[in-house]
Structure formats: structure tokens, C-alpha cells
């Protein structure tokens, strides 16, 4: 009989409110070891709140979050040692110097990889006596990433690592993350505003929507099943198809087009459109190639 691995993260029936505002209701998902999870959602859907709940900085109204089998608001020091946590805004003890930050963090983690830290930090070409608070956002992100990589955690949780980073630093971050995951049985749970960055990185995605609805799926399955169909939309046409059991979402596009998004096969979408009185193009309905960002917009809506 195969031994079932404990999930890295297990969220069961999670419900959370801010005052009267419902953030999630009955949220459930699992994060298996060795996978890279992208948590996607628009601003304000509760991505950072979910990370705070997972790390025990908030207690849920009801339901449970477990990390390596520990209840999230009672994580043992041993479990926290296994989790590398990047806080939004590349939070750091910015009054420390490059060398002091390494000296401080290294005391807490037995698997500390000093070489990883200095590999990243040496690229900054700054003296080790340079204070973190005197660095740019990109430079600080590199120090923080170095500290996380040196910690050699089993689970890396990154809360919007892209914030304030230019394309070069984002790419560097992604390269290091990719190498980190290849290095062993590592699990990554990442949120980002720059959705296209995650396309090359993540295995699974969790889409969070307002009100707490959630879709957890493999990225390749999602990109295969979720399709975009583009139809002409003359300037005088005001009515658009209405989402139904087949049509997930409809968005008006620039250049006199509208896009229909669906998880259903082409025939079913064509039939649904015709039932709503929309004529199909003469060439028939064809799926348009999509990036993850296109699919994200299609799934969650533009606004």
C-alpha cells in the first residue's frame, strides 16, 4: 500500500470576514509537496489575507488551515523553520547591513547556505557594510531573496514578489526560484500581480474571486480546457452574450471585437451563442491562443 504524503498546505472549510465583508466562505484546497502553486486573483480578493491565515497572523472565523500538519495559528518553531516567507514589499530588518542580516538569519536555520546568499548579494557589487535601508527596492529584493534561498526551506511562500521590481529583477527572481525548485522536493506558494511571470513557473493555479469562490487546477489543464473565442462586434452592437452554463465570461475588446471564454468545447459554445441569437463568423468559431494573463482576465473578468 502506498504511503500517502501529508499535504504541505491543507485548507478545509475556511471562512473569513473583515467586519461584514465576506472574504472566503467554505474555501478548500490542498497543496501537495514538490509543486509550485500560483495564487491568482484581483486586488482585494484576499490573497495576502490567505497568506496571513496560513502563517497564523490571523485566525479564521471558521474552518482550518494546516501547514505540514500544524494548525496555522499554532505553528511550531520546527514547522516555521521549514517555511521561507517573503512578505509583501520585500520586508526586511532594514537597519541591518548586508553582513549583519546574514549573520542574524543564519543562527536560526541549521541548513543555512551562506554561498547562496552571497552569490545573489555579490551581484549588487555593494560593500557588505551597506545598510539595507539605503538600497533600492530591487536591491533589497535581492537581499531578501538571498536570505530565503540560504534558509533552504521546504516550503517557500512568496507574497507578491514582483512588487516594485523592474523586468530584470523579476527575471532574476524567477530564475532563482526555478533553480530552487529543481534542487529538491521543494514546494512554492506564490502570489503575483504580474500574471505572465507565473506562466513559466507554476504547476498549479488557484484562482481566488471576490466572495471566496475558488478554482484549483493544474496550469496545463486549465490552459487546455479554458478557451477564448473572438467574434466581431460592430460599433452599433451594444448587447453582448450573457454568461450561462456554457459561457463563462464575455469581454468587449479593443478593435471592434468581443471575446467569449468557456471551459466547454467549441461546438457547445457555438450552440450557446446561437441560442442567444448571436451569429457566428462565416469562418466558424475558432479558439484564439492565450497567455496565462489573457486566461486570467478571461476567467476573472477585466474589472
Amino acid at each position, binding site marked *: 500500500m502506498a504511503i500517502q504524503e501529508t499535504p504541505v498546505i491543507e485548507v478545509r472549510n475556511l471562512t473569513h470576514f473583515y467586519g461584514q465583508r465576506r472574504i472566503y466562505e467554505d474555501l478548500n484546497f490542498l497543496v501537495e509537496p514538490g509543486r509550485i502553486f500560483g495564487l491568482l486573483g484581483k486586488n482585494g480578493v484576499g490573497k495576502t489575507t490567505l497568506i496571513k491565515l496560513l502563517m*497564523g497572523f*490571523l485566525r479564521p472565523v471558521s474552518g482550518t488551515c494546516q501547514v505540514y500538519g500544524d494548525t496555522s495559528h499554532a505553528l511550531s518553531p*520546527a514547522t*516555521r523553520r521549514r517555511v521561507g516567507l517573503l*512578505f509583501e514589499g520585500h520586508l526586511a*530588518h532594514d537597519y*541591518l547591513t548586508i553582513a549583519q542580516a546574514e549573520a*542574524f538569519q543564519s*543562527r*536560526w536555520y541549521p541548513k543555512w547556505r551562506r554561498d547562496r546568499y552571497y552569490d545573489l548579494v555579490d551581484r549588487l557589487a555593494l560593500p557588505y557594510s551597506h545598510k539595507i535601508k539605503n538600497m533600492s527596492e530591487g536591491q533589497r529584493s535581492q537581499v531578501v531573496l538571498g536570505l530565503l534561498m540560504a534558509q533552504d526551506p521546504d516550503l517557500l511562500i512568496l507574497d507578491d514578489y514582483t512588487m516594485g521590481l523592474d523586468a530584470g529583477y523579476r527575471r532574476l527572481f524567477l530564475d532563482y526560484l526555478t533553480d530552487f525548485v529543481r534542487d529538491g522536493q521543494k514546494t512554492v506558494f506564490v502570489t503575483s500581480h504580474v500574471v505572465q511571470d507565473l506562466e513559466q513557473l507554476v504547476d498549479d493555479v488557484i484562482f481566488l474571486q471576490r466572495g471566496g469562490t475558488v478554482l484549483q487546477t493544474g496550469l496545463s489543464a486549465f490552459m487546455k480546457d479554458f478557451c477564448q473565442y473572438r467574434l466581431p462586434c460592430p460599433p452599433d452592437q451594444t448587447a453582448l452574450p450573457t454568461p450561462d452554463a456554457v459561457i463563462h465570461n464575455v469581454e468587449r475588446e479593443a478593435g471592434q471585437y468581443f471575446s467569449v471564454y468557456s471551459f466547454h468545447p467549441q461546438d457547445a459554445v457555438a450552440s450557446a451563442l446561437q441560442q442567444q441569437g448571436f451569429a457566428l463568423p462565416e469562418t466558424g468559431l475558432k479558439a484564439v491562443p492565450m497567455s496565462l494573463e489573457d486566461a486570467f482576465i478571461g476567467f476573472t473578468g477585466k474589472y
Partner: protein
Amino acid sequence: MRALFLKEWVKLRPVWGLLLVANGLLMLYLWIDMRHHFRVEHAEMLYYQANRIGRLFYSDMRYAPLLTGLLLALAQFWPEVTKGRLRLSLHLPVGLATLTLTYLTIGLGGLAVLLLLEALALYGIIALYFPIEFANSALVTASAWILAGFVAYLGVTMIVLEPGRGRKLFYSVIVGGLVWLCHLAQHYGQAAPLLPGLIALTLLLIPAVFLPVFRFRYGGRS
């Protein structure tokens, strides 16, 4: 814990140094002021004022320990809370109680050194011009003010770390009352009967700090 001590020392060093200089300058001023009194007035007149009228020649330092404790607590915890850095420490693989105690030990230790130096300087200045009994009495009188420094440190720590506004207000009232009690005595020796009670109340603030820390850790719930 050595790592935490080192980190906190790096953070507090500039403010601690400034407070040391500021308190040093205040004590220097007290000494110059005292020397001036003894130059322009007869010693017996000053002894009379101190002994019979109860004039405190060192009352200018009355609120210095309070300000020292308050500023040290703000320097230690205000940026941690407003910049969110406290969450970094709370994620370290160490128990919350141990972490809290370490932070408090560092802060209270730094404050104790500053206030001890201040008390020693006061004792030295008074002993330089007055009989030793006056110096002993000055220490007792200043002890209540020094306790106010510890109350301010612990109280401000509680208020800053507490996530709920209502509780912040409640703590402010309690701490304000304790600080008022510490400054109640107007003449030398008056504070002596209050000291054991004040010490006990101040010590009670140490475990009381744990509640806002736990509430901060778990997002505002006890």
C-alpha cells in the same frame, strides 16, 4: 537568543546613544546648577531649603526617566509595528513567549543601564554638596521617577503592540494612572511609602505585555 540581542542592539544603538548623551547633559546641567546655587547662596540657606522647606534641587530631572522609557519603547517597537517588521521576528523558529521575553530583556536592560547611570550621577551630585543623608533621600525620591521610566517603557510597548483601539485606550488610562502615581510625591521622602506598591505594579506590567503580543501575533484576537 544572541542573534536577537545583536539585532536589537544594532537597531537601538543610535537612540540609546542619544538618550545616554541627553541624560548625561541633563545631569551635567544639574551639577552646574547645583554648583551655581552654592556659589551665590550660603550653604546653610540651601541646607535649610532642602531640609526644612523640602525643596528638591534636582526636580528638573523629574520627567527624564519617563521620557527615556517612552522613547526607548517607541524606538524598539513603533517601526516594527508600522513597517510590519515584527512579523519577520514572529516567523522566526522560536516560541512566542521566549521571543517576547528576549525583546523585553533587551529593552529593559538598556533602559536600566541608562536610569542606573542617571541615579548614580544624581547620588554623586547631591553627595558632593550635601551630607550623605540628603543623597540617600534623593535616591528614594528619584526612585519613583525612575520607576515611571520602566512603567513608560512597558506601557508604551503594550499600547504600540495592541491591535485593538479600545484596548489601546484602556492601557493608556492604566499606564497614565501609574505614571501619575509615580510623580505624586512633591517633597523628599514622600515617595518612600509608595515605593513597594509601585514596584509591584510595575512588575505586573511585565506579564501584562504578553497579552497584546499574543493578540498582535494572531491578528487581534486573544
